[in-house]
């Protein structure tokens, strides 16, 4: 069968094609969601390490616990009302307690206290009680609102160091990073810092003292940073990989689509006309195709990025300018096979204009080819753009998977075994390509025999 409807019918019979189409729709919906759900300046937030301090850094995905890896997720205590009591002589005391159970054999990666209030409190007092009954008391003088106090902050660590000295009986010059958490979680005794982690119920009580009444916000929080995060973990700065992947999706799709449409449409029209008109002009057009074919895409784009600031569209068009020759070559051969048919000559004999002939005979054969190659061209465009991003060339203020991977590379993620930082962004490039490939192949299969058939 022929005709447009039969192409659709045949396509609907291809199982791989339909699966691809479903995946494609899913990706599209997801990227629309990303565009709508996140503010447009999210990229600058992403690039600011400060914004991500509340997250455990270098944490693997949470689901690794299912594989038996001891990597507890973060615990966040937030909200809840502060109990307040006046303690006479104009002193005010506000307090809150948290209780959590720690079942892991490793310590958390950090604890972060984030007070939020209005007013000027004298101090905040945190009483950390371990399952074995020992308590560490931490005094933070003049706490600042909107600050994050973590275990390594001087304000907190000095008290922990005192506790360590008390327990081990030795004077600790410096405590190396991470040992604060050993102090907070390990079984007590002279070997505090090398003792096993205490499993059980921890109580944390926070008292805020003030000379005048203050308003403590429910958004004050205490976070116990775990050793795993989300579905895909975090990078060195605590940025969730899953967020980076989501943010990179609309860019990848848009760039791939613009690149592919521009390259294929131009290439097919150029090649189609070249094959159709033939003769010397065809020869010249072929040569012109060769000139662009000989431009090495990657180095050329790198070099050119020093002359112009890239935007998404200009990047896409540049990539298109370097990839159209492939489609022109294919389209030309299709056009040649059509041209060899006597009906083209017959049209001339009938007095039908060349223009009309091109539309009645050539376009119906070139169009399906165009669609199939557009679909197949999208992953190629995405791959090239991500590769450029990996080399540090991408439009500003855009989150790219290539960029994430570049950072992973620079920080030697592979050496340190932070595999999730490397695996997921790279995998996304493949994942996004897959539906296009499935759909493109299904289309190509339907289209190609008709092109070659007499």
């Amino acid at each position: 069968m022929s005709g447009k409807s039969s192409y659709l019918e045949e396509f609907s019979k291809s199982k791989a094609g339909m699966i691809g189409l479903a995946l494609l729709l899913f990706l599209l919906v997801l990227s629309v969601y990303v565009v709508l759900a996140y503010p447009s300046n999210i990229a600058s937030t992403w690039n600011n390490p400060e914004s991500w301090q509340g997250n455990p850094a270098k944490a693997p995905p949470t689901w690794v616990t299912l594989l038996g890896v001891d990597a507890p997720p973060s615990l966040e205590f937030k909200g809840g009302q502060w109990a307040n009591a006046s303690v006479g002589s104009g002193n005010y005391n506000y307090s809150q307690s948290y209780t959590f159970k720690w079942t892991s054999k490793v310590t958390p990666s950090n604890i972060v206290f984030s007070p939020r209030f209005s007013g000027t409190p004298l101090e905040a007092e945190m009483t950390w009680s371990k399952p074995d009954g020992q308590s560490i008391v931490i005094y933070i003088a003049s706490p600042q609102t909107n600050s994050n106090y973590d275990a390594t902050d001087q304000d907190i660590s000095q008290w922990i160091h005192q506790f360590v000295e008390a327990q081990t009986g030795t004077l600790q010059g410096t405590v190396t990073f991470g040992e604060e958490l050993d102090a907070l979680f390990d079984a007590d005794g002279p070997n505090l810092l090398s003792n096993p982690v205490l499993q059980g119920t921890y109580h944390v009580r926070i008292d805020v003292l003030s000379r005048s009444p203050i308003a403590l916000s429910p958004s004050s929080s205490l976070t116990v940073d775990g050793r795993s995060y989300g579905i895909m973990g975090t990078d060195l700065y605590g940025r969730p990989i899953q967020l980076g992947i989501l943010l990179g999706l609309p860019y990848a799709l848009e760039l791939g689509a613009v690149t592919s449409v521009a390259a294929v449409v131009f290439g097919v029209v150029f090649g189609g006309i070249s094959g159709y008109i033939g003769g010397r002009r065809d020869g010249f057009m072929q040569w012109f195709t060769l000139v662009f074919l000989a431009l090495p895409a990657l180095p050329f784009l790198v070099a050119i990025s020093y002359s112009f600031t890239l935007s998404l569209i200009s990047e896409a068009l540049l990539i298109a300018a370097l990839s159209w020759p492939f489609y022109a070559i294919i389209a030309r051969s299709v056009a040649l096979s059509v041209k060899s048919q006597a009906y083209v000559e017959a049209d001339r004999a009938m007095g039908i204009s060349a223009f009309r002939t091109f539309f009645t005979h050539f376009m119906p054969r070139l169009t399906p080819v165009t669609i199939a190659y557009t679909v197949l061209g999208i992953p190629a465009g995405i791959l090239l753009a991500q590769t450029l991003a990996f080399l540090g060339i991408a439009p500003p203020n855009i989150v790219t998977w290539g960029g994430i991977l570049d950072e992973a590379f620079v920080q030697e993620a592979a050496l340190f075994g932070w595999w999730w930082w490397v695996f997921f962004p790279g995998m996304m490039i493949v994942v996004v390509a897959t539906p296009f490939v499935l759909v493109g192949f299904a289309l190509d299969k339907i289209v190609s025999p008709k092109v070659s058939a007499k």
Partner: protein
Amino acid sequence: MPAGSTNDPVLKLEDLCVFFTSKRFMEKAVVVKAVDGVSLEVGRGEVVALVGESGSGKTTMGRAAIGLTAPTSGKVTLVENDLEVDVGKAKGKTWKGLRKRLQIIFQDPFSSIDPNMRVYDSLKIPLQSQGVKDAGEVSRTIDDVMRRVGLPKELLDNYVFQLSGGQRQRIGIARVLLFNPALVVADEPVSMLDASLKGDIIHIIEKEAKERGTAFIFITHDMAVARVAAQRIAVLYLGKVAEIGPSDRVIENPYHPYTKALLQASPTIEPGMRDKTKEVNVRGDLAISTEHPPGCVFHPRCPLVMDRCKTDVPELKELEPGHWASCWLY
């Protein structure tokens, strides 16, 4: 009357030459003399067959006759209502107008009509591009030509690829008949068809010639088909007319050694031949060389070659009324 002429001609070829020059970089220019000084007239309602081997120039001559290929020299004239149109020099509007008067039927029905079109569209588009816009007229004309080529109207809704070879060739003819042309070049219209379908196609051509006075140039390599289809036969060899005359005469009383060889070689229903060797009185293959031999172009293959043939070019001589041959034997 000069050789090849006829009463009431529709189309006149006068000393027609079509040379193809291919000059490629770094190579000597190559000139292929596809048609070399042919004069021929085709009368109203007449079917003239051009017969020859591949490379004899018959297709080029047919294409030049309807203006698809420009002549190198010589003249092609369409004569209608005392109006003469120089086909070879027609351009632009005149050329497009000629498309209604001069037509061609192609050899391969599988490639001469776009298989992915509906039959109706393949007939409608030529009409529309010649300015027939009225829907009623379009459909009337289409119904009419379908009837004339003996196809049911129901086929109009089909795609061309759903049709058999015989049906497609009829559509090819129907397309040509849309404008009731003055002359049609039928380029091997039956050579790719099954035997059982050849007769019908030839009959359609005969009927159009008789009833509407359409002239046909019927190109074929098959002498037997030429005899059945045409009133006159012109035998071509290397772009020149070797012999021309009424079909029956050319076949029953051939003069030119090449015509004789063609007739000898043509298979006939003759079971008694099976134990004999067929006489083929020519030597070698048709020279595909681009340089024509001096003298008679046929002399290198001629079994009766004489010294004179190697140097002098023979003219066409009238050996019986209307029956001409170019050979030094006569």
